[in-house]
């Protein structure tokens, strides 16, 4: 459901592509009860899809969040599963899925455990579809 097959491209064979609208709909299911925004981004902080009431801050959070993720991942490459950034007025939780990062952030009233559970659910759900994508 998340991907379409394009069998016309002879160079790549059956090319798997992403349906951004479907991905956004999946992310939207996590944006409730204080969650401001959920997004999927590449390791450099470029956003692939975002959903939520506060997407205005998403570019900054994606850029800085991915940078902080990289710093912590150097400690044990490939072993970092989640990162919780707790600030006075909000929390950010990040997780990895395939070669991408999932990020969910909310206000200070959201419990960290809830954000982590949502990220864990997203990463589990998106792992198989995103694994099928062609990465160049």
């Amino acid at each position: 459901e998340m991907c379409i097959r394009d069998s016309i491209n002879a160079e790549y064979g059956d090319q798997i592509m992403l349906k951004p609208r479907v991905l956004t709909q999946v992310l939207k299911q996590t944006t409730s009860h204080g969650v401001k925004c959920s997004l999927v981004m590449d390791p450099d902080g470029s956003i692939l899809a975002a959903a939520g009431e506060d997407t205005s801050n998403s570019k900054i959070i994606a850029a800085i969040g991915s940078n902080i993720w990289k710093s912590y991942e150097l400690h044990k490459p490939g072993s970092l599963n989640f990162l919780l950034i707790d600030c006075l007025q909000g929390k950010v939780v990040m997780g990895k899925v395939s070669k991408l990062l999932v990020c969910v952030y909310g206000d200070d009233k959201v419990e960290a455990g809830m954000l982590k559970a949502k990220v864990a659910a997203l990463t589990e759900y998106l792992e198989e579809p995103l694994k099928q994508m062609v990465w160049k």
Partner: protein
Amino acid sequence: QEQKAELQVFLNRFLTRVSGLQAVYLSDRDGTTITFASKNDSEQENLSFVYAVAAEQASTLRLGKNHSITSFYNDQIIVHLNLLPLVVTFVGDQNLNVGLLSSFYADLESALKSLRDSVSKLENESGDQ
């Protein structure tokens, strides 16, 4: 030396109270360890030097000042607590009770206030020179 010994006793208490906790480090913003308490008495990598930079970056997320960063690895959990110019690092296994740890933050902040003020003062004085 006396203060260092008192600090170590204080940090050691966390090791007995929090399940999954293996070590507690107190360092400055450059990652230099001031003192630590560890279940196996050896000092291991704690990433406190990474945290000081990460905390400053995290404080620009428009979510207010950064309070802590917790990193969950396959076999380890590391919690960094912002008491800049001091950094407190908790290193535990994958069963570390992060929630219980967070309940001690206020006590930790209060206990380290005088040391924190002293380090700040030293930094300001060396900055003036």
